[in-house]
């Protein structure tokens, strides 16, 4: 100890001090998080390699669950549908929420009202939402198709009753519901962009689009990253919306992974298998998130 060079010792002490300080910040949250979330998740990883019926002990089954997955046609359908939802829902929501945030980030008369309106879909209970939207989408009598027929479309889609249109219907409602939520995050993010950057860009003769590209987008990067990650994970995990709107149907046209997991677990009582599917879903989310991390890091450096 005594022979340690002073500089190294000081650095060692600094690391030690920082660790202590860092942990003191984390601890209030970490205690709750570790016990109540991390532990069950770690258990889940164990159950994913077992044959578990929820009651008794879990029988270790190795990779059997994953072999079963490979040949489970429903799993692939669910995966396909989840990707469909994700690929359409992310850009739509991202664009809508960013546009809303830009539009509502100013001192307009009535802006408070419009912000509240944009957030309304998110605060409305999902049970009531499903009821109303299903009614609006009703193929024969619903107002949406009434309007479509009025503008000259003689055969409007069957929406939630058609296997081709049920997913678009769910995506519309999903986007409608969540855009206010992400708008809020963008609004908060916009506040971190210093106003003088716009002045400087203006002085340089940049037009509105160029200022958006050169100032707004880079300034929003941490927020955009956060929103994209949450949106991605949220889309891959989409569950309650589909459950109340279509319950996966008609047929399997809107069956998504989260619902597949719920079905296998709570309906068919194969909790080990359901855990394995969760792990697959988890890995997909993880890979996508890590890619997003890497892209984000490269862009910001």
């Amino acid at each position, binding site marked *: 100890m005594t022979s340690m060079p002073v500089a190294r010792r000081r650095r060692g002490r600094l690391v030690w001090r920082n660790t202590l300080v860092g942990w003191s910040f984390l601890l209030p949250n970490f205690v709750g998080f570790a016990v109540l979330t*991390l532990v069950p998740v770690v258990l889940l990883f164990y159950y994913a390699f077992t044959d578990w*019926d929820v009651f008794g002990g879990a029988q270790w089954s190795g990779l059997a669950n994953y072999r079963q997955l490979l040949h489970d046609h*429903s799993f692939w359908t669910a995966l396909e549908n989840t990707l469909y939802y994700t690929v359409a829902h992310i850009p739509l929501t991202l664009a809508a929420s960013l546009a809303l945030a830009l539009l509502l980030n100013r001192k307009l008369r009535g802006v408070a009202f419009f912000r509240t309106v944009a957030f309304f879909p998110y605060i409305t209970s999902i049970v009531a939402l499903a009821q109303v939207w299903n009614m609006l989408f*009703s*193929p024969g009598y619903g107002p949406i198709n009434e309007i479509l027929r009025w503008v000259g479309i003689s055969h409007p889609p*069957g929406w939630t009753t058609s*296997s081709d249109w049920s997913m678009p219907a769910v995506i519309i409602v999903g986007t409608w519901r969540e855009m206010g939520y992400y708008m809020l995050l963008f609004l908060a993010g916009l506040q971190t962009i210093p106003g003088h950057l716009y002045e400087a860009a203006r002085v340089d003769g940049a037009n509105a689009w160029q200022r958006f590209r050169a100032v707004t987008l880079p300034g929003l990067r941490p927020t955009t990253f956060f929103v994209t990650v949450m949106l991605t994970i949220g889309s891959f995990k989409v569950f309650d919306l589909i459950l109340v709107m279509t319950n996966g149907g008609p047929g399997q046209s809107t069956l998504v992974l989260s619902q597949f997991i719920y079905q296998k677990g709570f309906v*068919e*009582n194969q909790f080990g298998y359901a855990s394995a599917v969760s792990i697959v879903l988890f890995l997909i989310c993880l890979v996508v998130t890590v890619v997003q991390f890497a892209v984000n890091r490269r862009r910001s450096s």
Partner: protein
Amino acid sequence: MKRSIAVVLGAAATAISLVLTGCGSGSDSSDSSSGPVTLTLAGWSLSTTPEFKTLADGFHAAHPDVTVQLKEYDATNYDTQMIADLAAGKAPDIYVQKNLKNFYTYQHGKQLLDVSDVAKQLGDSVGGLSDYQVDGKTYAIPYRQDTWVLFYNKDLFTKAGVPDPDGSWTWDDYVNASKQLTAKLKSAGSKALGDYEHTWQSTVQGFALAQTPGASLQSGNFSYLKPYYSRALDLQKSGAQVSLGDATTNSLTYQAEFGKQQAAMMLMGTWYIATLLSQQASGDADQFQWGMAPAPQFDKSTTGTSATPVSFGDPTGLGINPKISKNKVAVAKQFLAYAAGTDGAKALAGIGITPANTSAVTGTFFALKGMPTDDLSKFAFATHNTKPENPVSKYTAGLQNILNDLHTSVMSANKPVDAAITDAQQRAKNEVLNK
């Protein structure tokens, strides 16, 4: 790095041991065998489902030193909540098998006590008992046995000038009657349709499985569904019944469709009797004359009041949680015997519930205010060969999921019947029956 991992692991290990060791325990043997005993019983929607309180009070009256305490569950998420409670060792002493589909889960998961001695004591007066038997042992005792019958609106039949059902109907007669009713009601200025078919898969599949000779869920051969779906699609296309799409998107309820006279006929389980009676009394349903007839049959061989019509319905049973303290087992078994026996049956019939022991209570039942009094209604209520909707097996839950997908895609006209059946058979083979 090492530190943080160590902390995570430490916390995790403590908690994991909590979970893993906790699972096995849970029974407390603190109750003394003498003196008052309290049994806990699961139930759902207690304010609108009086059967649990009726049984609890009835048992308490006969055994004053035993109190039956009700524990309320959510009606639609009953099994999710119960599975969680059983896994955590917090479930009540006696719990209900809400349908047959999940019985396998509980029985196979060793969450039901062997109650064969109660079954032996009850004999064969109780319908649906055999559904709860596995390898010669009985794991639950049915206390209600609903069966599907045809409800019809006598006033609308009169208005349309169509003769009432007489118990001789096959499915073709039913389809004809429905179309006739729709047309004649329309010309009589009524908006009511011939029949309402609710959105559940059982409205088609339950009958197909129960009535078609040789039909079996586990065979993985679903061709028996075809004639039943052809007829349902025919009715839907001809406008004699609301389409599945409109029923789901508009969240139609069968109570309102029949109770508000939107349809002249409806196939439904006998649990609807109690609802209809109370809704007519409260004004939630219109006042009209109604009756019951046996469900339409596969062919003429089971029609007519001298034959026994074939229908379907799952029993509702009571089982005992194996974690019950030892000294309460005997009392719990007494409760099961009471609920399924004549006394319990009479108490249930008094509130409009169809007990498992129907023959004992037909008189009580038809004395209720608002009940129809014609002979065919009594026949439909008392005489039937009721087969299970969900025959107990390890494959049932998985197969029913597949068949539900078939139901929604056929009835919403997204897939022709043949293609949907081929598809379902393929899935059944690859995803369920191969385990």
